[in-house]
């Protein structure tokens, strides 16, 4: 009986994962910086939601590229004064990461296949600074889900140079997260994260005492570019389809758009 049930389940999955012509998913992007005053030490809030055409099963994402505006001072912020080592993170989980390596918080929404349908799972996410990889700054994401699957998923991203319109990009290769045997992998429905000091406290030793402080965040350039600070996301999915979206954080009130200093 159990064997037969498994066989039925496998048949159902075959229907779901058969290589049919999928309509490409769409993606919407939101971004904000707080505070948004030019030159301020800020926190970036960035997130996207993936929309699938009616009747299409959600897809596992394999790569996320977040494009960031020019002139943001990430590498010269005080975020990531310590590094979390990926090997230790894999072994021990997020507790292995030094508090001073925390760079942001977030959440992800995934679709976990159960039977013939998908169950939405909301995961919390933490973002840590890792050691340079291939000469590039590295970010380590730790996503932790509780229901219906208890799992901790770790993936790394690199801060890379970007095309002219942007100042840099965070490129993240996502691991495929298996679900049930022979079933499709866990799919990504959305992700939001901060990169910045909001809600983060670091510690340092001063004259033998441990002192808490809020790290300086990402420095905004002194001027706001024409059209606001541009952000974009490019997503790649397991079936080869891609989706992209872009947005801009408007220039703050009183800050003339198109300031040459920020362009």
């Amino acid at each position: 009986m159990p064997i037969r049930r498994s066989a039925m389940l496998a048949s159902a999955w075959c229907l779901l994962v058969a290589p049919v012509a999928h309509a490409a998913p769409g993606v919407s992007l939101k971004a904000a910086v707080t505070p948004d005053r030019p030159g301020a030490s800020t926190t970036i809030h960035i997130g996207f939601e993936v929309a699938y055409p009616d009747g299409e099963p959600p897809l596992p994402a394999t790569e996320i590229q977040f494009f960031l505006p020019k002139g943001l001072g990430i590498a010269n912020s005080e975020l990531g004064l310590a590094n979390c080592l990926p090997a230790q993170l894999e072994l021990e989980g997020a507790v292995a990461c030094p508090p001073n390596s925390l760079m942001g918080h977030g959440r992800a929404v995934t679709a976990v296949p159960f039977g013939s349908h998908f169950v939405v799972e909301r995961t919390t996410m933490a973002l840590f600074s890792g050691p340079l990889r291939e000469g590039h700054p590295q970010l380590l994401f730790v996503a932790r889900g509780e229901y219906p699957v208890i799992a901790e998923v770790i993936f790394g991203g690199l801060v890379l140079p970007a095309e002219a319109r942007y100042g840099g990009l965070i490129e993240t290769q996502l691991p495929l997260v298996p679900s049930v045997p022979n079933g499709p992998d866990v799919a990504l429905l959305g992700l939001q994260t901060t990169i910045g000091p909001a809600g983060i406290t670091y510690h340092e030793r001063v004259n033998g005492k441990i002192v808490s402080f809020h790290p300086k965040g990402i420095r905004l350039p002194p001027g706001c570019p024409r059209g606001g600070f541009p952000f974009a996301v490019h997503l790649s999915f397991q079936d080869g389809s891609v989706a992209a979206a872009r947005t801009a954080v408007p220039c703050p009130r009183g800050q003339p758009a198109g300031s040459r200093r920020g362009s």
Partner: protein
Amino acid sequence: MRSGRRVSLVVLAAALASLTPPAAQASHALNVNDSGRLHLLKAFGSVLVEEGPAGGTLPGQANVHMVVGSTVTATFSIKSRYGTIFGSGHAALHSSGRYASFGGSLSVSHGTGRYARAHGSGKLYGVIDRRGDALTVQTIGILSY
């Protein structure tokens, strides 16, 4: 007669000098090994402007304008007693964390005073203390002027 000969020699020397390409006019080449501990003057976006004393072969006051991203690019000046040299550098990050180290190359493009014809190239190394943005920098290379 002697006066005429002297005039001829001066004219000849001037003529030769005018034929000599500018690069060959550099009469000094210096192996430079300088280092400095600079402090933050101002920071905006990915830019750090640092200033402080530089010591070594070419002592003076250093001013560095750095753009720190996935790589480090910088323009710099060193103002010494006899003039100022100007140049630029490009470096890759070597480590992250509180102390972000970098290394790469630099070139000297021009100068003033005694270093009006300055040019040269070399290596650039540095460490940024990201808690306060103090910069320790070392330059090694050959300066012609």
